[in-house]
């Protein structure tokens, strides 16, 4: 249904599959490639990864496939293919390989792999070398589950084959455990001793047998993330720490108006600052055109160091011309939403007959909710080190979509994609911001224009004012109840600024698809369900913000269900369980499908309720709130106990998060993601909004965009469902229900229903 159902970065897989006319293709037949047409007609390309083993004699150590190298001292080096943005994939993905190869985790060292593409003989000519490399849509774990287990199992197979050769014995007499092969007669030999032989053996083309889950030693345990020591000693290399010799630091003054233009500038004073080397005009997108490179036109100061570049930018005198959105404000957008919702929108779902349900209803309830624009603001501001040369490009940057960086560099420079080297650094937070590579595009442009390597630096102000913001929207929810208080009809009408704004190759009729997920709760659980979308015209650039529309929609839906329970005089947990009904699987066409299991959602709801002590009699000024939601294949519920004081200030006394993401891989990482998602959800719900005035973003730094601090961060009690289902990811499931659980608890404590976010420090 949705055109980019798996999140934005996977769209770049299709871009990989569409080399530009400028791209020359070299054939490389080492990789065995399968290309198939998906049902939607999109080209899905999967490489059978792990092929193309480099030979031991060349490397001097045992390189077994593309992911594993066993050194003579016994260290097992495992390659991590995806960007580490704090979601823990540099630990969890290697754990999956280590489990299947029976490595000793204590001897494993993890190395970040570079971005890799290989040529294919078949159209479209290139594909992933290491399998998908990106961070978005909580897809890393499910992807790894489907391919990296085989990688580990094949390495183990080759090590057993090597031992069979070594001892001149039968393969079936050999087993493995913790980095050694054991012979049935009791002999043992280390992987390190076998790696040289194993590296010369042909990579198995056919799938090999995987471990039975009962034999797991590593999967399901709690492991600290592999970079802990580097992080706590200041040695971990983030993008902002990367250096290319001779690079100039670039700081850019960008047009503050949406789609505005550069009228004139005077760099005389800037050039007087010691260390400032050059001032360049950075071209930007034209009004109405898709944004495929950088976000805004600007004036760039190139200098010897960061401080000179920052001072140089301060000294620029620039006149900007407001564009067509020069009058846009937060108030004008609110007004636009109210007007839109009076009309008729696009029907995204229309089951049964909602109008008839409304005519025969005993009660009709309506609730209107507002969700603001918010910024990603990862702690590490955008940056990129880029060196463009006539026949090659080097990119070192914190990215969520390295394939997109490669594509944009090819687009700007025309350099063959096989001559564009993309190195992934550790990433100081993603949250969806770095799915786009606008900052990489800026550095590529500036390196191309100046002929020098560039180290681009964004300040916090740049980051807050030039983002792909989480869409803003007004939600109107209408429900019908019968005489017994049972839900009979549901309408969700949403006016929002689609996150697909200015995406290339998008049809206007598809703009709703990232805003309403038509199979979400309570679809299929009720006979009469209508979902309707209205396009808000706004100049703000928009994009994917951790758990995209789920954060907005779960707030509206789970708040409204609470209102319905009150109207029906039912307990909020019982009311939800009644809607979920008998646990069963329903089809789910959106990302996270193909099925949604109402029983698993009911399961986390019950678990959260039990842990918080649902149903307790609460003292005056205290209340319990709950919410549950299905996000990208995972099920989560929050239950909170909140106190509200006489002056309207409120405090989270307890916070429970129950999660079912299938089989847990790294328990410590999973718990961390749930804690982090919860805090992110609370922080955003409580304090955060990006306002617009005069066609510009109002907020500029943490003084006006106040992230939650320690004093307001509750302990998060995480309940993990021990499931044996295939794992989903966990990066996004912890957010959507945090806000409605909090506001539902505020209602229970105070009778105040919060319908507009952010809540602010007090409730009226």
């Amino acid at each position, binding site marked *: 249904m949705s055109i980019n159902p798996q999140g934005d970065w996977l769209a770049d897989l299709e871009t990989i599959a569409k080399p530009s006319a400028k791209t020359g293709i070299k054939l490389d037949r080492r990789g065995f490639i399968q290309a198939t047409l998906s049902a939607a007609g999109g080209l899905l390309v999967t490489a059978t990864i792990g092929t193309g083993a480099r030979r031991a004699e060349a490397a001097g150590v045992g390189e077994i496939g593309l992911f594993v190298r066993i050194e003579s001292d016994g260290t097992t080096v495992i390659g991590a293919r995806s960007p*580490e943005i*704090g*979601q823990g994939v540099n630990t969890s993905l290697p754990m999956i390989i280590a489990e299947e190869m029976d490595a000793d985790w204590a001897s494993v060292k993890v190395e970040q792999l570079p971005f890799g593409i290989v040529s294919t003989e078949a159209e479209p000519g290139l594909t992933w070398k290491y399998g998908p490399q990106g961070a978005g849509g909580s897809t890393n774990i499910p992807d790894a589950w489907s391919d990296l287990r085989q990688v580990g199992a094949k390495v183990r197979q080759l090590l057993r084959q090597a031992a069979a050769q070594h001892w001149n014995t039968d393969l079936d007499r050999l087993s493995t455990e913790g980095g050694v092969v054991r012979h049935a007669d009791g002999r043992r030999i280390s992987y390190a001793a076998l790696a040289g032989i194993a590296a010369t053996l042909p990579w198995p083309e056919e799938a090999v047998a995987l471990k039975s889950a009962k034999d797991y030693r590593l999967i399901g345990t*709690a492991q*600290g*993330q592999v*970079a*802990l*020591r580097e*992080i*706590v*000693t*200041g*040695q971990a*290399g*983030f993008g*902002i*720490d990367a250096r290319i010799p001779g690079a100039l*630091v670039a700081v850019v003054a960008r047009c503050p108006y949406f789609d505005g233009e550069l009228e004139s500038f005077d760099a005389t004073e800037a050039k007087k600052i*010691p*260390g400032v080397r050059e001032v360049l005009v950075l071209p930007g997108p034209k009004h109405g055109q898709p944004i495929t490179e950088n976000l805004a036109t600007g004036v760039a100061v190139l200098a010897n*160091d*960061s*401080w*000179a570049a*920052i*001072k140089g930018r301060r000294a620029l005198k620039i006149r900007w011309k407001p564009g067509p959105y020069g009058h846009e404000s937060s108030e004008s957008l609110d007004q636009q939403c109210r007007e839109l919702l009076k009309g008729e929108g696009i029907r995204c779902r229309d089951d049964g007959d909602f109008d008839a349900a409304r005519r025969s209803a005993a009660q009709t309830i309506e609730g209107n909710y507002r969700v603001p624009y918010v910024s990603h*603001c*990862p*702690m*590490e*501001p955008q940056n990129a080190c880029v060196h463009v040369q006539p026949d090659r490009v080097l990119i070192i940057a914190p990215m969520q979509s390295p394939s997109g960086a490669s594509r944009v560099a090819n687009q700007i420079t025309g350099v063959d994609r096989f001559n564009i080297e993309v190195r992934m650094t550790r*990433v*100081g*937070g*993603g*949250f969806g911001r770095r799915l786009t590579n606008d900052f990489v595009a800026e550095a590529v442009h500036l390196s191309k224009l100046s002929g020098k390597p560039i180290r681009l*630096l964004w*300040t*916090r102000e740049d980051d807050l004012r030039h983002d792909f913001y989480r869409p803003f929207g007004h939600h109107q929810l209408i429900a019908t109840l019968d005489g017994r208080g049972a839900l009979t009809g549901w309408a969700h009408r949403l006016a929002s600024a689609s996150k697909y704004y200015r995406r290339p190759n998008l049809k206007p009729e598809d703009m709703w698809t990232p805003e309403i997920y038509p199979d979400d709760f309570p679809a299929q659980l009720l006979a009469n369900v209508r979902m309707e979308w209205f396009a808000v015209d706004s100049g703000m650039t928009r994009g994917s913000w951790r758990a995209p529309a789920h954060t907005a929609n779960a707030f509206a839906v789970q708040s409204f269900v609470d209102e319905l329970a009150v109207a029906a005089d039912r307990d909020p947990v019982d009311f939800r369980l009644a809607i979920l009904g008998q646990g069963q699987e329903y089809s789910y066409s959106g990302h996270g499908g193909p099925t949604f299991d109402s029983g698993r959602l009911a399961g986390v709801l019950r678990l959260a309720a039990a842990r918080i002590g649902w149903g307790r009699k609460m003292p005056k000024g205290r209340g319990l709130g709950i919410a549950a939601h299905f996000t990208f294949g995972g099920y989560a519920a929050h239950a909170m106990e909140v106190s509200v004081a006489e002056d309207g200030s409120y405090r989270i006394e307890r916070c429970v998060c129950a999660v079912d993401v299938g089989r847990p891989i790294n328990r*410590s990482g999973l718990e*961390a*993601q749930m*804690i*982090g*998602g919860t*805090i*992110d959800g609370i922080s955003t719900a409580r304090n955060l909004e990006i306002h617009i005035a005069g066609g510009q973003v109002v907020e500029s*730094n*943490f*003084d006006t965009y106040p*992230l*939650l*601090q*320690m*004093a307001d*961060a*509750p*302990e*998060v009690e995480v309940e993990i469902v021990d499931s044996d289902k295939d794992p989903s990811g966990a990066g996004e499931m912890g957010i959507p229900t945090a806000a409605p659980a909090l506001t539902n608890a505020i209602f229970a404590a105070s009778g105040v229903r919060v319908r507009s976010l952010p809540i602010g420090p007090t409730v009226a």
Partner: protein
Amino acid sequence: MIKLVVNGQPREFDGDSSMPLLWYLRDHAHLTGTKFGCGIAQCGACTVHVDGSAVRSCTLPMAALEGKQITTIEGLAGERLHAVQQAWIEEDVPQCGYCQAGQIMAAVDLLKRDPDPGDEAINTLTNLCRCGTYPRIRKAIKRAAQLARAEGEQ
């Protein structure tokens, strides 16, 4: 010419004295463990110690540092990790890790002032973490206090 000591090493700086310490450390002393987060002393990612106390280096000009002793995250550990670093590892605190150098430097400073901090004392820390590691930071600070006491008793 400004003379200062960074992680025990005497250094001299004859550049722009309005340059904040942060940029001196990152661009000139090649100590990139100290991070840039906001530039207005709000987030604490740039926290270092000047003469033993935590300061936010992004707004502190070099002109104010003549004769000062600077300690950055790279200079915190001796032969062994500092108790706070050890506790951070044991509690698996970081997610993205970007703010953590500043968090650790702020926690070390807190423990100097209050060797057994309760929740109220920990709540005075205002370093920002976008990933939401606060609950584990809280645990790690308490664990570090225990580790430091155990070390002291040895």
